[in-house]
């Protein structure tokens, strides 16, 4: 009986040492999870998730303070990717944080009305508006993410939202209907 205990204890410690050695020797340097989460977010920096940008939201998710379904620009695809990364359940987008836009949008400044106040330039989280005080302001359309943060500060309401319609060069085909996958009447 005594022999059994000693033997098992020795075997357990041997395996323990082996595991410890493996943990140190074969350690894989991974990306800190905050970077991994941030790489999945759309970088719109709109703040609809109630955090001051995508990075703070990623940090909050890493700490467990924020849920994965607070990002409307990311949409369903981002929620699924986050669920996969963090090993949690997929859930539908939390409607409190906004609606998913059907088409991507950009903004344009109406040059007739712009007064050159720079309030929109200060509001843009990615510096996508060119201009300076008393000089014309212009949105760099190729960089605009559609976060709409510049719309509110403009005192003359000269910034307007435009949908970016798909072209033959960037359209996506739709998956066909698979009738048997969901219940239906009859």
């Amino acid at each position, binding site marked *: 009986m005594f022999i059994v205990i000693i033997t098992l204890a020795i075997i357990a410690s041997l395996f323990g040492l082996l595991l410890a050695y493996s943990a140190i020797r074969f350690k894989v340097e991974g990306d800190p999870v905050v970077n991994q989460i*941030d790489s999945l*977010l*759309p*970088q*719109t*920096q709109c703040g609809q998730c109630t955090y001051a*940008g*995508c*990075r703070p939201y990623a940090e909050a998710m890493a700490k467990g303070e924020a849920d994965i379904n607070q990002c409307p620009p990311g949409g369903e*695809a981002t929620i699924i990717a986050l669920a996969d990364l963090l090993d949690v359940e997929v859930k539908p987008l939390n409607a409190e944080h906004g609606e998913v836009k059907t088409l991507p949008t950009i903004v344009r400044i109406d040059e007739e009305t712009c007064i050159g106040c720079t309030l929109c330039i200060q509001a*843009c*989280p*990615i*510096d*996508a508006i060119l201009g300076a005080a008393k000089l014309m302001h212009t949105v760099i359309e190729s*960089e605009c*993410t559609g976060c709409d943060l510049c719309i509110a500060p403009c005192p003359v309401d000269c910034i307007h939202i435009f949908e970016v319609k*798909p*072209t*033959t*060069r*960037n*359209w*996506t*085909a*739709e*998956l*066909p*209907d*698979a*009738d*048997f996958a969901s219940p239906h009447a009859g």
Partner: protein
Amino acid sequence: MRILHHHMQVKLKIMNRNHNQLEEGILSKFDGGLKLVGHKQVSTGSAISSITPGKHYVIPLQQHIGAISQVLVKSGDRVLKGQMIAKRGDLISAAIHAPVSGVVTDIKQHAVPHVSGLSDECIFIENDFKDEWIERNPLGDDYNHTASPNLRKIIRDAGIVGLGGATFPASVKQTEINLKTLILNGAECEPYISCDDILMRERAAEIISGADIIGHIIKARRCIIAIEDNKPEAIKAIQAVIDEDGTGFFRIQAIPTIYPSGGEKQLIKIITGKEVPMNRFPAEIDVLCHNVATAYAIHRAIYFAEPLISRITTITGQGIKQPQNIEVLIGTPMQACIEHCGGYTEDSDELIMGGPMMGFTLKSDDLPIVKATNCLLVTTKEKEMPEQHHMPCIRCGKCVDVCPVRLLPQQLYWYASSKNTDRLLEHNLFDCIECGCCAYVCPSDIPLVQYYRAAKTTFIQQERERKASDIARQRHEAHQFRLEKQKKERAERLRKKREMLKNKSNDKEADKKDSKQAAIADAVARAQAKKAERLKENKAADQDIK
């Protein structure tokens, strides 16, 4: 050891076989494929006819693979026939030319024939019926003494793209290094389409001339014209021209009629026995493949200085009253072509651009003929309508048996439905040529090609979005950095200012002290100076006394 030796011997045998294959005309087979009913006779009963020119032409700016062309004209400009109205948008792009002389009336969005059904930028030209060409200085026979880059420039400026349907810019494929074999693709494997067939029958000499030009550009050693064996007249016509040529550079290779032997990669496997390595170009195995109509267009460019402004299109199907092949100017409305062929029949059902396997349905005929329009197929209502919704996959594996790329269409279907991008890429989703063989045999009527197209376009769009969001992240970080820097600088300036203010008051005190000390020092210095003077004087006086 012996196994290795045996393996090497087998490899050598295969290599030798490949080498001899080209010389001896042995054919290989590609995996999968289907035997389909050709329906070619529907449209080959008459010669190529021409349509009377119309009043309005709509020329889309994107008729090719690559970047959209850049407009060179504006509304109100008068253009000549053959004038370049849009230039290449990028290295991989094509120029666009006016099909008629007339006036540019508009440049705006119009519906274009594309599988998405979307609109695109088009140049609208109103024909003045003067048929006035630009000045043309054809090179003619001189091409034999012209350097390849110059010949490629002529082809490039003529806006010539692959006319088999893929519309890849032709000159980009024609590199000079190591392209030993030129294959002319006269297979035309899809049912109903016969434009290449009729072109070979009626204009064989021009095709061979074009092939000779290409052969000269790429310094090929041989040219093989691949023609499916269901086109005996075309084979005869081409053979007659080859016999007259007598140089031995050209050779016809009749291939069995299997769909899709006209696919570039499949055709190369049939003729050379080799497979184009994944993600690489046929040039890597010393082969260049061009469609016969492309060769014809190259002939027109070199001998007539004509840019690509027309093509042969097959108007066919049970839903057309007089199916035939027509020579039509790019930009001609499809309505005009249909009318020329007698119009629609009573029970016409779908208007398809392309063939029945790879073609896509069009939403109306108010669309222009583009460079890719090899066929307009009008089908009639079928007695048995396929189900709206498809049945579940029963994993029968028929799709695997027919895939010409040796993919697993079944697995691609499962992963596309569940949007599993990783597995889709593992199963080589982007090697799919969308030939439709898998969907043709599927007993559950699953529209497999639609699944793959959705998966591919979604993935490409996701990649685009990911790159855009990476840039946005960098911009945001730069924005943060800039604000931080500004804050720091402001804080620094404030600190310095405060420091300076503090120092100024200290300085005043110090100044006071300083001036006192300075006065004392001055006085001491004066005193010492005086002392020194006196000593000097005394010394001198002493000297004098002595």
